[in-house]
């Protein structure tokens, strides 16, 4: 349904996307995960026809987003990471305005607005002014706005940011419902567990590149198998770092004074074995422990930015 092919985009000296390629199958809820600055928003804004790529191409259902903008806009519903609402408009007027902007026939609009407000759990807010709604309600209204023209694809950029737990749960429920309606949902977040519950598949991005893609269990399994370890030694930290780097399952070794951090792809027993090896080999270890990190950061660090196709899609 959505295809990115070797897409690159620069903003001055910043490389936002670097040969980014991704296939998103139709009818799935697909997560796009990565730290801030990974290129998620740029990828989504290109898909939403708001930016043109410097190189490569992007297509939605076979339509090129750069060359067939009108057709693509008819097929997508876009919710940016930050969005505002118009003052002095009622909720129903807000949706009717966007329905008209998407050329929905005027006769269909009243019933459409009613259905959409019910879908997003705002059935009694039709006469409320948009600017009087809570953030969670505005978020749901924005989701309803994305659906006024019945698009095949929904592009949701960090839709859960700034929401309280209850609003997040409501949003997830609506997204699940959209999946049942056979919509393709591309949803981004910088927190992997946030999307793990609702996504069928996901891709991890870092520095404008695709790091990994696959099903949620596969991605989370790889992420959880990687631990970041912190070791403090009495002396010879540099030598210790070189020693660690030579071991299997160890990546991303860094030295800061007498403290060494690295990623270890071993189970908990493997951690104990490593500590035993270090003591046995005569290193003066003062502290040895795991640092709690985000799963996606661990994944990115563990793969050293190399593309890792976890699943076969």
């Amino acid at each position, binding site marked *: 349904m959505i295809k990115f092919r070797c897409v690159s985009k620069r903003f001055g000296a910043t490389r936002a996307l670097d040969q980014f390629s991704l296939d998103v199958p139709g009818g799935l809820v697909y997560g796009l995960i990565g730290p801030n600055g990974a290129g998620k928003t740029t990828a989504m*804004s290109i898909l*939403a*026809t*708001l*930016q*043109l790529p410097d190189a490569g191409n992007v297509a939605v259902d076979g339509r090129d987003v*750069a060359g067939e*903008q*009108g057709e693509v*806009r*008819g097929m*997508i519903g*876009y*919710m*940016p990471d*930050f*969005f*505002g*609402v*118009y*003052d*002095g*408009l009622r909720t129903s*007027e807000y949706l009717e*305005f*966007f329905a*008209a*902007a*998407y*050329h929905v026939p*005027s006769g269909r609009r009243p019933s459409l607005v009613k259905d959409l407000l019910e879908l997003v759990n705002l059935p009694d807010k039709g006469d409320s002014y948009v600017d009087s709604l809570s953030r969670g309600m505005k978020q749901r209204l*924005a989701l309803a*706005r994305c659906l006024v*023209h019945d698009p095949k694809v929904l592009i949701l950029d960090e839709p859960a940011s700034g929401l309280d737990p209850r609003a997040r749960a409501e949003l997830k429920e609506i997204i699940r419902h959209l999946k049942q309606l056979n919509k393709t949902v591309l949803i981004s977040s910088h927190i992997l567990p946030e999307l793990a519950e609702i996504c069928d598949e996901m891709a991890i991005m870092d520095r404008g590149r695709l790091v990994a893609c696959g099903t949620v269990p596969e991605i989370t399994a790889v992420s959880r198998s990687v631990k970041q370890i912190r070791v403090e030694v009495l002396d010879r930290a540099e030598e210790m770092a070189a020693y660690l780097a030579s071991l299997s399952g160890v990546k991303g070794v860094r030295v800061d004074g007498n403290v060494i951090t690295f990623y270890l792809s071993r189970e908990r027993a493997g951690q104990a074995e490593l500590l035993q090896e270090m003591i046995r080999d005569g290193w003066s270890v003062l502290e040895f422990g795991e640092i709690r990190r985000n799963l996606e950061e661990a994944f990115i660090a563990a793969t050293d930015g190399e593309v890792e196709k976890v699943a076969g899609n």
Partner: protein
Amino acid sequence: MQEINPVLLKELKQRFRTGKTSWLLALYLLAIGTFVLGFMYLNWRSSPGMYQPSRSRELFIVLSAAQLILLAFVTPGMTAGVISGERERQTLSVLLTTRLTPWQIIWSKLVSSSAFVVLLVISTLPLYSIVFIYGGVSPGQIMGLFGFYLVTMFLFGCIGVVCSSFFKRTGVSTVTAYGLAFALSAGTGFLAVFLEELERFQRSEVMTPGFVDGVIELLQNINPVFVMMRVFGERGIDTGINFGIPYWAVFTAFYLVAGFLMLAWSARLLSPGKRRSIK
């Protein structure tokens, strides 16, 4: 039946449903009305018990000039935030992903913002009727004046729109729009007078009009103050240049062409790849 552009409909709804609009209109009429009645009162005080009809024309000119100054302030101010305001409210990116073209968005923003200014001008018509009571001004001149206002408002509005599309912040856009409107309203007039003075120094005897005379003629044809005075039947600077079309046609053509070029540029600035910032 052709449906009204949704942006235009929304903007009109938002603008005209608030009490602020009525208050602004009332204040505008109060300011202009106080000005007119004050002028009449001062006339009456200078010769109590009688009103000199010959001063109607003077009143007409003063009223029109006051209205032109107000338009020069209100119009760019109304349009200088139409796009940058959307950007600041973070609603522009969503609007640009709809089926509306940048041109439709720009055009409807201009029309909806100008609609309020047009309403301000039309609502002052009853004040002009005071002038008619005592004569001195023809209906043709009134119509010419209102036509002049519309064309002037169009370009001033376009200046605001193009600044709003170019600059990210409404504050910068507004200041620049006022600067450009001032340059057009006063700068062209000062330049025309300055060039005329220079010419007069260098001109020893009667000569055929040259390039500088053509520039002076063009400047006074595009300067709103000069044009308004010519609508009242006053003579401008005598350059001896004739463009082959009346002064008002030069004025109208220049303002419309410049305005449409600005709108086209604004629409281009909103197109993907040309966009400065969508947020």
